[in-house]
């Protein structure tokens, strides 16, 4: 394996770190959801929707990691020739979604947890709680976009 290939693999690893944010976020939201469902088990569905929201960062990370790995042909087939600078560029393209994902997933989890508190008191306001949490996700979406544009324009 060349240095370029190793750097590209590192980039995929970095992208997948977005899952750290999602794990933290889904965890925080899940704690809040348990508390609310203890009072009213009927709110399971509603709280689950909010808990799922911070899960997307991890998926965006997985997506970019997968794209990078398949671009260099690590997933089955012939591993491609990757120059050191192309490898470095692919490493860079994994960075936005990975790094932004960690914090946005965590922060979104906190917003979702607060949303769960909101529906404990006002079940009809689920949509508003969801929107507040989704505001945070915007930045993960933007990071995904940047990662994708970098990835798709890197020539091996």
């Amino acid at each position: 394996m060349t240095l370029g290939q190793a750097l590209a693999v590192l980039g995929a690893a970095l992208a997948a770190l977005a899952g750290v944010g999602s794990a933290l976020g889904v965890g925080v939201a899940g704690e809040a959801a348990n508390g609310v469902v203890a009072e009213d088990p009927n709110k399971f569905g509603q709280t689950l929707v909010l808990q799922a929201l911070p899960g997307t960062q991890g998926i965006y990370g997985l997506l970019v990691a997968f794209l990078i790995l398949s671009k260099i042909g690590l997933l089955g087939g012939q591993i491609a020739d990757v120059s050191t600078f192309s490898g470095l560029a692919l490493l860079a393209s994994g960075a936005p979604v990975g790094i932004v994902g960690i914090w946005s997933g965590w922060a979104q989890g906190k917003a979702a947890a607060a949303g769960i508190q909101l529906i404990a008191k006002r079940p009809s306001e689920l949509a508003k709680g969801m929107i507040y949490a989704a505001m945070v996700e915007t930045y993960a979406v933007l990071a995904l976009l940047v990662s994708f544009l970098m990835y798709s324009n890197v020539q091996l």
Partner: protein
Amino acid sequence: MNKLSVIGLEADKAEILRRLQDLGVVEINDPQAKLTDAEWAAIIHKDSDEDQVSALEAELNKVEIVLNTVAKYDTEKKPLFASRKPMTKAEYAKVLGSGDSVQQKVNELYERVEQWNEKRSEENVIVSQQASLTPWMSYELPLELSETREVRVFYGVIPAVADTEALKKKVSEASDATEVSVLGKDTEQQYVSALCMRADEEEVLDALKSFGFTAASFKGMKGTASENMEKLGQRLTQVREEQKALEAQFVLAPEEKAQIQCYYDEQVVLRDRAKICDRLLATKKAFYFDGWVPAEKQSEVIQTLEEYGCWSEVKEPEKGEETPVLMKNNNLIYPVQVITELYSLPKSYEVDPTPIFAAFYIVFFGMMFADIAYGLILAGLCAFALWKYKPEGLAFRLLKTLVYCGISTAIWGVLFGGFFGDMIKIKPLWMNPLENAMFILAFSCILGVVHLFIGMGVKAYMQIRDGHLFDAICDVFIWYVFIIGLALLLFGNSYVAPGSGTIGKYMAIIGAVWIVGCEFIRGKGIGKLVGLWNLYGTTSYLADILSYSRLLALGLASAVIAQVFNMLGRMLGKGVVGVIGFIVIAVIGHTVNFLINALGSFVHASRLQYVEFFGKFYEGGGVPYQPFERKTKYTKIVKEDK
């Protein structure tokens, strides 16, 4: 929405209220303001029917307990959405009968519920008695025996840590003729009994107490522990059987249940009718109320009121007066109202945004989800739920909106070429966003600009309607010029037409000058300089437009993740194992992807309306129209088929 005032005779009140409730179109106002007005307060008093309300509340409470209990033992499958059963008036009256027999049935069942509760608490008592008796099973003397002519009997507990040998020794030191036995031990205490001569009672008790002895007692129990245990066991079986017997009576035939549900609805209707009296003002012989009625329903209401010889008056609301809000949209757009409702109703003088953004909402959702199979599944599932459960209200509107969104998703799937990602390779009708990301990004932003411009257009419309043409030019139209100019300046020469960059430059300059300049005309004092600050607002437009890039990003996310799962499935190779593995991975993976991205598309399509679009013009905060109607839970009255 028009303002209705009515005066009628007290004698006809009950009948008039019943008719109005059946019509269900009049919202009756709270008369608090009139009561504090001296002129009104001199001649009227607040009507109310509190006794009737509380009697009906109590009855409702009873029926509710009965229905809840019955539901627990109901074997019928519960539907996903509660829907009210449609009935004609005649059917409803027939099921309900005079109401007496149902009431009797409810009372009977309520009594059974109470009996069941008693049995339940008796069961609890027995179980806890059994638990406390268990350690004493090896104690052979009757529990009530505390002394004979010569001998004193003690039994009780000492802490688990106490040294029983030392205890025995100390007791025998206190008196010669003693017998101490340890019956058992658990994590907290040890169970001991002691016999001694009555003459030495005090010394022995002191010795015991020095080891932390506490006497136990079983009040009301006669005979040994094991005898009592047996008795309790028998009683327990009996109590449980009695519960079973009662539970059997909670299983109702469907007709009986329907009858009780009708009875519940009837009580709710009567309660509401008694409660609405709170909002009436009364003299000795007459009553008065005012409220709101939608213009197209008012003739029906007036006709009814005239049958009873009421005086009534309908007025249009005064300018700027807040009225309750009832959104009116045609059948096609009506469901999408749910998106507006989830945000906030429009104020009565505002434009209802639903028909303006409905198409955008559906297009945005489809673009972010974009897959033929996902779209067909979403539309199919929601259409099935609509057909099967016939939900009403919010659930109906939400499901119908999702049907639209599903169809849109399938159409975008055709355009972008996706069927469960790339499970079946389909040539995109338009283009593959994975290969033309920059183009679709630009397309998303242009779509965003159109969306935002329409939102700003609504603001201009409202300003012009209210006679503020100049404000509309400064706040909206000049921004059109400025933003289009900037876009042409930046991209015109390379993407639109050579030379259009120059036109863009002049448009941007004119726009910027006007934006700064117009505040010198309409601003006052330091406000004249606000224009410079407004120019800085360009950044917020930039942020708004770039926000639409999520249309591309989320579209990519749902497509690529679907492809990832397909690829994982294919990795297992060919052959039987490969095929089974592929199916398992595909089913789980696509289910997860479907759920996450359907949720994401719903939330982000909403966000683009709420934050970007509504931010341009919409205020919200209207008070929903709440007519006095039959707010029933189980049944709804429909007109008879003719």
